[in-house]
């Protein structure tokens, strides 16, 4: 990759690992942020990549509709990794805020929060949030 003079943009190439196609890509870290409430569905604790976690979730948009969201924590030390495995149990609820990536390949769209900040919900909000996941997820293809 080469950095252009007087620009924050870095240019390079990206290769699709499935079909081998190579694309030019210009990269700049923007402040694209997303905030939501999530319910943990599955934790992918890859023993080949012990310092990162991929967590599959359901999330709520601004009117309480359910959508599928991934969270990626790529750079964890041992203590953070242990703590997250302890925190992100199946079904647990969290407020999340962080940089988002949107991928689109093979007609599938994925939404991923990268190293988001996370906080637990206020106790009084938990019943309403659980109801939203349960009722609004019931008719959704990603059922809670």
């Amino acid at each position, binding site marked *: 990759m080469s950095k252009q003079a007087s*620009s924050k943009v870095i240019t390079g190439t990206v290769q699709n690992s499935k079909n081998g196609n190579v694309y030019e890509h210009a990269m700049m870290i923007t402040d694209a942020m997303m905030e939501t409430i999530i319910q943990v569905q599955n934790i992918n604790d890859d023993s080949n990549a012990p310092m990162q976690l991929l967590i599959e979730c359901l999330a709520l948009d601004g009117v309480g509709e359910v959508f599928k969201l991934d969270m990626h924590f790529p750079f964890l030390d041992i203590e953070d990794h242990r703590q997250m495995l302890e925190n992100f149990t199946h079904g647990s609820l969290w407020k999340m805020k962080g940089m988002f990536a949107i991928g689109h390949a093979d007609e599938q769209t994925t939404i991923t929060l990268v190293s988001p900040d996370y906080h637990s919900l206020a106790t009084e909000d938990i019943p309403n949030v659980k109801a939203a996941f349960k009722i609004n997820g019931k008719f959704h293809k990603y059922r809670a």
Partner: protein
Amino acid sequence: MIEQPKRQISERVIQRCETDNTNHFEHCMLMPTATMASFIKIKTVRSYVHPDASLQVCIDCLALNYEADVFELEINYTPHSIIIRDQLLKEFHQGGLMHVQGSYSIDDDDSGVTFTLHDPEYHSVAADEVIDVESLFLKNGSSWDR
């Protein structure tokens, strides 16, 4: 504390025009803090006056995620006056760049995922960032499906 409307659970009926089939389903209305912020490049702007005199401005855009990949985004404004509507039409024009932030909805069905921002705040892109942001849309604009 998340603000709750008095009646949290409503029933919706959707009728498919082609077949007249109807689907009944419940919806639990919850309005959590779900916001999204991004740079956008405007593709088209449409303005409507509905039969009840309400106003709507629909904007189709390209947007950037955090590492500058491009995705499609819709913006929906419901201005409360013609003055505000005209101000939106003046500021949002084809090819224009903006930074937007607001409440989002995500419609994920068999036809794909649609991202919509509702009445977002907007700001022009800082002068020293315009060239970089423009170049990201230019170079990555075809990246939506790869």
